[in-house]
């Protein structure tokens, strides 16, 4: 095969962006609609994201508004409940539904921001480790080894406690923990792609390193990394809820679902709704991210595509 032939290979194998992406998004949507459970989970995520964004229009009350005469009211359908507080009220008469709605903002925000940070940091370091190898590879992978040799929650809690709990600390502590999975996956992808025919060809025909990385490597690793995102968001949200529950995460007056459950804990024998509903919102959201994440992984994996009925 001459140089001319190689050139043709390259243009055929070059992953097209733009049109190609839109096409695959349409295909994914059609596939999704065939899976009832995944569709419900995706709709739920869409809905809860909408609720978080438009909390101030959706929530029936101010989440911090105290009304001592209304305190510890059960949900509306239980004896003693009132339609004014559909999911009941807490020890200060604050509306549970409104608090759950506002807490969704922090829980979802932390989940997505941390995943965005870890995606960028982890991917960059993973590419560096995979492409350049040598001591850089050892240093980066050694760091992930070290970070993964702590029980996860213990490390996140320690970082958080030392830096002083709060929203920024939570984001930093979770990012420190979670970039390692992206770095490892990216490095694996890069190592596999490095030897692929089209990468070698792109170099043989004289593509600069920057060109090869941007046009050939990145497009091919981004989609497997993107499909990891929902699963990672679920893990991050679970960890955030855990440290907030233990008092080392989000601090009042802002709230997350984990913190709401923690606050409701003092009243568990008298007010079951205070722990039940924020926890339910958290569980349903994480369950949905996991369902959508698993589905997305299968749908984008050529080996498994047949199973989803295409």
């Amino acid at each position: 095969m001459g140089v001319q032939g190689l050139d043709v290979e390259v243009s055929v194998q070059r992953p097209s962006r733009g049109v190609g992406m839109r096409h695959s998004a349409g295909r994914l949507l059609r596939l999704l609609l065939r899976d009832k459970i995944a569709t419900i989970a995706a709709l739920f995520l869409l809905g809860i994201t909408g609720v978080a964004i438009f909390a101030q229009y959706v929530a029936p009350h101010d989440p911090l508004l105290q009304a001592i005469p209304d305190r510890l009211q059960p949900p509306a359908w239980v004896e003693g409940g009132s339609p004014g507080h559909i999911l009941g009220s807490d020890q200060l008469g604050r509306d549970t539904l409104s608090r759950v709605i506002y807490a969704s903002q922090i829980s979802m925000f932390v989940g997505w921001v941390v995943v965005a940070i870890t995606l960028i940091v982890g991917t960059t370091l993973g590419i560096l480790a995979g492409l350049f190898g040598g001591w850089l590879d050892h240093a980066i992978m050694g760091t992930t080894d070290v970070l993964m040799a702590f029980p996860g929650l213990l490390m996140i809690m320690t970082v958080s406690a030392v830096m002083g709990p709060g929203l920024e600390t939570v984001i930093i502590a979770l990012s420190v923990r979670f970039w390692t999975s992206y770095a490892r996956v990216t490095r694996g992808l890069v190592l596999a792609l490095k030897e692929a025919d089209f990468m070698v060809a792109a170099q043989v025909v004289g593509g600069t390193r920057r060109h090869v990385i941007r046009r050939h490597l990145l497009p091919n690793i981004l989609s497997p990394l993107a499909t990891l995102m929902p699963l990672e968001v679920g893990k991050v949200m679970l960890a955030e809820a855990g440290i907030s529950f233990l008092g080392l995460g989000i601090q009042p007056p802002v709230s997350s679902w984990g913190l709401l459950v923690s606050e409701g804990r003092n009243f568990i024998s008298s007010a079951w709704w205070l722990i039940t509903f924020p926890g339910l919102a958290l569980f349903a959201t994480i369950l949905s991210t996991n369902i959508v994440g698993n589905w997305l992984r299968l749908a984008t994996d050529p080996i498994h595509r047949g199973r989803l009925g295409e």
Partner: protein
Amino acid sequence: MGAYVLKRVARSILTLIAITMVVFVLTHLLGNPVAMLLPADASNELLNYTRHSLGLDDPLIVQFQRFVVDALQGDFGPSLFQGVSSRDLLVRSLPATGLLAGTAFIFASVIGLTLGILAALKPRSWLDNAVSLVSITGVSIPEFWLALLLIVFVAIPSNFLPTAGYGTPLHLILPAIVLSIRPLGRIAQIARGAMVDELRQPYVVTAHSKGLPVRTIIRRHVLKNAGIPIVTIAGIEVVDLLSGAIIVESVFGWPGVGWLAGNALRAMDFPLIQTVVVWAALVTVTVNLLVDLSYAWLNPRVGNQ
């Protein structure tokens, strides 16, 4: 094989050294532990006195030397609030965590493996779907929430299951169930996947065609080959049980290492924090080492590479 073991052990020791460095940076360079320890309106004299009494005003190199000596002994000095050696406190809470985590691990492994294998034998059956549902619920449910729900809706109405505490087998039931739910889900998931992959292999077809009973094929061939991913996940679960134990022990007032760690972190009792973190890292590194060595046993190719 011998060279592989030696190399792997050396790497574990290096990792452990690196971890203690990270702990030093975390506790001595990041943030300001004294400010976290004292109330916000503490006077400068009190801040300086506390810093001095904890040795945090010494030159960094002196602090580092002391840190290394402490790390080698696995004890970073007496707890700030209980006045007892941190290592003694840790050792005293080990049996409780061992009992809880051990029970949860056995429960999760036995049930998880059984469910995963059964699901793999009949893919897409109702049993397979039910196992998928159990495993995805298990990995998605927040442990603290499940624990509180069980307390409110099971323990309190039951009148005989305790809501918190330690000492009798009854006290163990709820914490062990909660702690086992996530590993159970993941072990079932991984076991199913590994078995499905392995059952597709040509050697299984060969074994079938020469008339071996299914039971023998699975016991003699498939299980050992599917073992590598399963052992990996089991190793990860052991480490994750420590994370889970922090939450579960806190909810149920179970006097183990997780409870100790949670309290130490909230109170910024940092001799105790350092001790717990370094010991937890030691356990993690040891488990990872054992997992890697068991690969070499399950798949002799690994050791010869």
